[in-house]
């Protein structure tokens, strides 16, 4: 009985589905709390077996501590997003139990992705989460923007799927298997690898870059982030990114670890392009959600740098950065969800102006999170950037390090612009006051986390280092 978390999650999902049919009033609230309980219990099952290692279903899936750890992070972020859904006021069109049920499907898809050990299982789980996300993005069906974003996301996502399938078919054609361990075996046995294999890998990389919105495959991100309902954007920018990163790491480090020379350069190009586009693209944005999309691209570029050497330290740095990125992003989106004027959601940057006057505590917390995103010490974002730069410089990639720091200075400009409008500008129209205490408490906790990580960085380093060991155990 090794595949417990996923099985438990799926069964729980079916039970909640049946329960939801019989609920009349406030069904989405009850389903929301049930999903939270389900996620909590699944989290327990994940953590219980965190040090287990086993290949299951004919090595279709693999259970290892790297996967389990990332699964638990995905569950935490998804649980937080569902909690956000419960505590903030949502649009009428989102107040349906289906919203949460589809979110649960997406989570199951992500968990399967993280433990996939075969191109086929990877494809199926990737599609499971993607299809769920397409629906979520276009969920508020009366909203033109949401539908537009859904169509865009669907078209780009399908393209990505096609590219992935094409790449895997090339790899299957050459190796005769889709299993990661057999791919790994083939690559280490062969001296001269056929070029087609590299081309297949490039196709898969392109497809996954589309999923994590690494430039130059980022085009859909700003539109989808802006168009989707804010709660979906919050979900979209955290859990799926972590899941796809897990896939990317597992794929590149394990089966294709031997040909690091070939994919290392591709990752370098992706990361440079993402950092530049992510920092320059955000400069002229006036919508907070759109700006967060570019900010995500910039962070993704930064994280990708640590993947270039494909070393244990690099993966550790990625895991730590992802945790910090999660706390920062969720903090910002929790605020965006609460941004409303006259009961209508607003997301423009100029709506932030003068926030300090009305909500000093929230403005302070948000400022900490933005400074942290900009990578100003002593906040969490700085530690993430420090660890990644450490990896980059350790591998003598100085030009990459210089591009990274220069783009992060440019990126700092738009974060401090946000802080400027919160603190220095006089309010034009005041936002509605934040009424729910849970949001305030959560914001405070997230910013407090960002503020105090500097005191115990070794905890995260030790944790993530012990987790990544399992990834390299197979080699």
């Amino acid at each position, binding site marked *: 009985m090794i595949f417990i978390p996923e099985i438990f999650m799926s069964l729980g999902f079916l039970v909640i589905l049946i329960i939801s049919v019989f609920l009349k009033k406030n069904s989405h609230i009850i389903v929301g709390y049930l999903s939270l309980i389900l996620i909590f219990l699944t989290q327990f099952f994940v953590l219980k077996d965190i040090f287990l290692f086993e290949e299951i279903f004919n090595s279709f899936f693999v259970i290892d501590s790297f996967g389990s750890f990332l699964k638990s992070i995905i569950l935490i972020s998804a649980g937080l997003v569902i909690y956000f859904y419960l505590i903030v006021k949502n649009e009428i069109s989102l107040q349906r139990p289906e919203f949460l049920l589809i979110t649960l499907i997406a989570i199951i898809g992500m968990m399967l992705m993280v433990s996939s050990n075969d191109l086929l299982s990877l494809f199926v789980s990737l599609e499971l989460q993607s299809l769920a996300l397409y629906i979520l993005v276009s969920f508020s069906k009366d909203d033109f923007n949401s539908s537009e974003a859904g169509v865009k996301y669907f078209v780009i996502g399908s393209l990505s799927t096609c590219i992935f399938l094409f790449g895997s078919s090339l790899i299957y054609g050459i190796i005769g298997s889709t299993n990661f361990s057999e791919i790994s075996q083939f690559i280490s046995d062969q001296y001269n690898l056929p070029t087609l294999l590299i081309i297949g890998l490039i196709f898969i990389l392109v497809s996954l870059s589309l999923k994590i919105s690494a430039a130059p495959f980022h085009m859909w991100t700003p539109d989808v982030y802006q168009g989707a309902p804010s709660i979906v954007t919050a979900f979209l920018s955290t859990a799926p990114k972590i899941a796809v990163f897990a896939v990317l790491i597992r794929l590149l480090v394990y089966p294709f670890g031997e040909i690091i020379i070939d994919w290392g350069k591709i990752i370098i190009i992706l990361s440079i392009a993402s950092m530049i586009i992510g920092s320059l693209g955000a400069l002229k944005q006036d919508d907070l959600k759109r700006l967060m999309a570019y900010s995500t691209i910039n962070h993704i570029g930064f994280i990708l740098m640590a993947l270039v050497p494909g070393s244990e330290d690099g993966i550790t740095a990625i895991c730590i950065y992802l945790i910090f990125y999660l706390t920062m992003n969720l903090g910002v989106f929790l605020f965006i969800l609460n941004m409303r004027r006259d009961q209508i959601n607003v997301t423009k940057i100029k709506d932030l102006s003068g926030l300090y006057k009305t909500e000093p505590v929230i403005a302070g917390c948000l400022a900490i999170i933005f400074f942290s995103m900009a990578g100003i010490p002593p906040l969490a974002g700085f530690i993430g950037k420090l660890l990644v*730069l450490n990896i980059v410089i350790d591998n003598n990639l100085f030009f990459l390090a210089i591009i990274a720091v220069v783009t992060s200075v440019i990126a700092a400009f738009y974060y401090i612009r946000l802080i400027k409008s919160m603190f220095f500008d006089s309010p034009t129209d005041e936002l509605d006051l934040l009424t729910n205490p849970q949001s305030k408490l959560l914001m405070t906790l997230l910013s407090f986390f960002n503020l105090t990580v500097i005191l115990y960085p070794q905890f995260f380093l030790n944790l993530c280092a012990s987790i990544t060991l399992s990834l390299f155990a197979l080699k």
Partner: protein
Amino acid sequence: MLNLPILPILICIPLIGLIFILLSSENDDFSIQSKRSALWTSGSNFLLSLYLPYNFDKDIPHFQFVNSFGWFNSDNLKFSLGVDGISMPFIVLSTFLILLCIIFIYPQSKKNMRMYLASFILLESFLIGTFSSIDLFSFYIFFESILIPMYLIIGFWGGERRIYSAYKFFLYTLLGSVLMLIAIIFLYQEYGTTSIPRLFDFSLPFYIQIWLWLAFFASFAVKIPMWPFHTWLPDAHVEAPTEGSVILAGILLKLGGYGFIRFNLSILPDASIFFTPFIYFLSVIAIIYTSLIALVQDDMKKLIAYSSVAHMGFVTLGIFSSNMQGLHGAIIQMVSHGIISGALFFAIGSIYNRYKTKEINFFGGLGNRMSRFSVFFLIFTLGAIGFPGTSGFVGEYLTLMSVFSKSTTVAFLSATGVILAASYMLILYKRVFLGVTNPNIEKKSEKLNIYELVTYSILTIVIFIIGLKPNLLLDYTSSSLNRIIQLYPISIF
């Protein structure tokens, strides 16, 4: 002798005070409760910081009062604090100037006073941390953290163009220091340690030193600021509130000079020798060019800001002369500039509080209205000129003497800066305080209040003490500087 962990205490007291300030009940423009907390915090921190010179062993060149804490999961990356003769004066200077700032703020009212005080107290903690870090990473973290409170101080309480200036300040300094971060990580990767005392023992290859030197230079040249990188300073100074300017000129600029001595000079001696002509070139340009600019300024704060760049030119000259006189001169010049420019900014703040303008043309004959104030201002002016007897003289004299032993031309050119300083400062004094009373200032003539009087008296006394007995300060620094000078051959040219 009590064996106090004095440096962690000095860093933590402001943080504890910060909690009290933030919890103080009133948050109006004149919140007496938070002012009291701030005064207690900074006062006790100043008194505690006097523990350092009192118990400091002048003969030990190494770091004293060392405290190390485990940090990242590596034995070589620790959070270490310690002081030697070079950093000790700056810690006392920081606590001293912050205390004076709080005293100066005391009778005033400002929007959101509680946050204003909180920013200063937070700044104090970061400043002490920066000067007392003996590990590159903790140094960098404190060094960069200063941006956050300073950005808020300029942007929130500044003048009309405060937002532009705050951006400029933030981005310039950030761009400079991220390059230093790369250098620090490189040092860590190559030598496995970031502990400054241990880095003294390595001798790095020349070609590596060159790159590291440039990376550190990028950070400190922006901070100090040297000539082509100085453009953020006048903007930041003009727009910052009075106390913000005092801290900016008084302490933040010194971070650059301190960094030059601590890193470029101590860890990278070969590259420092290589780049000395380059530094001389930039410094001479800074001294002459910015002095000429200062001559034509209409805004008092801008004039002092440009004069700061010129004075810092003397500091860089002294530092890279890399002999005892030069380094002594540089340190005295930094401390004295911290006090004198601080005093001048306080004085301009007093004028601004009364007349709401810093335009020189607005004034004339202010001496007739505020006679006591004009005496204080004269003393500060003479200090800025480098009049014998004031602290400014000692720094410039020692620096010029050391430069003269290296290069007569450079000494000649930089000495013209002293004359130019006399002209712009005296012209400023003449236009504001002497002559016929300008009708603009006929009406208002508030006397100096007791807080201002205390601030100015203390500053005046300190200016004369350092001016007349510089050895009080120099005795502390000699042995630490000796260790650096041993790295350098007698003659460079």
